[in-house]
């Protein structure tokens, strides 16, 4: 029976981290999944946000080789697409919640940035071109 309890044992957490690093290795100047803390608090936050995926996530951990995370991921991808999708969405979602990762990719999150000015002056010249080309609608036919 699959579990809907989102808490991970230490063994599950370690196993998860090794597999998460297969999907998201340290490369291209970016930290790996475990370097970003995906296997610690971030995956807990991701699971709390998506309780609907907990059972499939836990089921994904129960499959494949414990010793060979790359082989386990390949098997999951090839044979269990639903479980793979749960695992990979949670992993990328958790990774991209990391403040360090956001900083490196230049994404501040969905930030508050109230409007401080009007930019109409920046494009009014272009709009004058639009207006000069004339109407683009067909008027009502009056019978």
């Amino acid at each position: 029976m699959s579990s809907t309890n989102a808490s991970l044992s230490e063994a599950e957490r370690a196993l998860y981290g090794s597999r998460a690093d297969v999907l998201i290795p340290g490369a291209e100047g970016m930290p790996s999944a475990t370097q970003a803390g995906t296997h610690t608090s971030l995956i807990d936050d991701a699971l709390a946000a998506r309780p609907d995926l907990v059972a499939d996530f836990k089921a994904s951990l129960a499959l494949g080789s414990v010793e060979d995370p790359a082989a386990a991921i390949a098997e999951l991808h090839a044979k269990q697409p639903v479980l793979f999708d749960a695992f990979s969405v949670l992993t990328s979602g958790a990774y991209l919640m990391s403040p360090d990762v956001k900083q490196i990719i230049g994404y501040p999150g969905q930030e508050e940035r109230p409007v401080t000015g009007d930019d109409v002056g920046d494009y009014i010249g272009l709009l004058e071109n639009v207006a000069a080309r004339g109407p683009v609608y067909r008027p009502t036919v009056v019978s």
Partner: protein
Amino acid sequence: MTPEETKDSAKADVLIVGAGPSSAFAAVELSKAGFDVVVLEQGDWTRRTEFAGATKEWELKAQKDWHPNPNRRGRPADYPIDTTDSDVNPLMFNGVGGSSILYAAHWVRMLPSDFQVRTMDGIADDWPITYEELAPYYGRTEVAMGVSGLAGDPAYPDEAPYPNPPMPLNKIGHKAALGMDKLGWHWWPGPQAISARPYRHMQACVRRGTCLTGCPEGAKGSVDITHWTDAIANGTRLVTGARVREITTNSQGLATGAAYVDRAGVERHQAADVVILCANGIGTPRLLLLSKSAAHPDGLGNSSGLVGRNLMMHPYAAASGVYDEPLESWLGPSGHAIQTFEFYETKQERGFVRGAKWQVMPSGGPLGLRAGYSDSALDDVWGENFHKRIRKVTGHTFEWGITAEDLPDPDNRVVIDPTLTDSDGIPSPKIVYKSSENTRKLMDFNLARAVEAHEASGASEIHVTPLMRDCGWHIMGTARMGVDPTTSVIDKWNRSHDVPNLYVFDASSFVTCGSANPTATITALSLRAVEHLIAERRNQETPR
């Protein structure tokens, strides 16, 4: 009083089913005019604090809790919809505010030709009203919703001033506008029910960009904010958790109210002199088809056989451009930065009729609506390529979305599913919907032009999505308006041809659908119809 009726459900002057935009506009006007109004809504209120936009989990929650597809979201208020015979999934929200809770607030008028498709293009049907008849009501909806925009768009015959100045185009809008200028194509800042300054019950937009999953600031013009508090202050009784199973009728063939199930599972009845359906283009025909009786064997108001037919859902395609320079493309509102009507009208040489409206919208965060990519090769999407892709597209991408006109086809329809039910055991709707050859040609043409638009703007990569399955935001046409009772369900005042005290105010009434976002038209029609109802109150036939 029948056994199901309680003191709370004392007979109302007007009963409205559903609490979305068409209902909200009607309820304010009716209650202001002194009518006793009861509204039955199957969902509940959504508190601002429930929206996830200001949390780090936003993108994960957007894929489930706030997904617009009710089959995927699966909240208690949602009813399942059988979509196995449909090219497109219908999208909606069930709760106070209706789909305005999750919509992008594009507040766009239809164009004059949209009301005369038969006259101008020789296909489909004309509406029984013209653009000019609806224009004053459009103007009033724009004021009610605090629409921000810029007057003077040459896509329209009139220069309607908006109550708020346009929102900034942001970098994505500027980039797109430069491309359109280079090509000599129409574009204009997108009018939207979102404002940079506080307006009536609406807060100032902070450009968080999470409009499609609910606005945590209360800045988006959803009708739970803009209308319902006023309607309730006027005396409207809004009953949440009330799932209507049937419109009841008497021996004279008049509507007498609605039977519904409350959240405790108790069957109740709300009596009323007049019933207005505002349950959207699927919920309304579902209810009419479920309301069979000896006098109405094919469903209520269905002597034409057209209830549920001519379903239109605005097929949607997209061309996504990736740009080398940073565009901050997560920045809201979302909303639309700019729109174009360049390819809206019929041009014979294109080989299809009618057209599309395009809009530029932000692309959100890095996760987006990213699936697990189980259908892609591992190395293509994961490993080093995961990092390359994220860094290349995040903040560097925007989409030209293409909203295509859908022609009415009686074979595209809402029917009652023979086996599927909602959580109260009420039969669910099934939709049958296929894209036409005209739509495919229209989409191919517009996508090719959208690629050119990105090229003109300097995109380094362009990706095309021909038809999105999760795109059925606009559900229209399933109880169409018309003059002839044999070819339409309601008259030009949104009243049933068959049942003189039954009205349909939602987008089921649309004869054709243009390709403009429909909420402005839905609410303008609602205002127009309810004012007529109020003016004619002394002549309104009611059950004795």
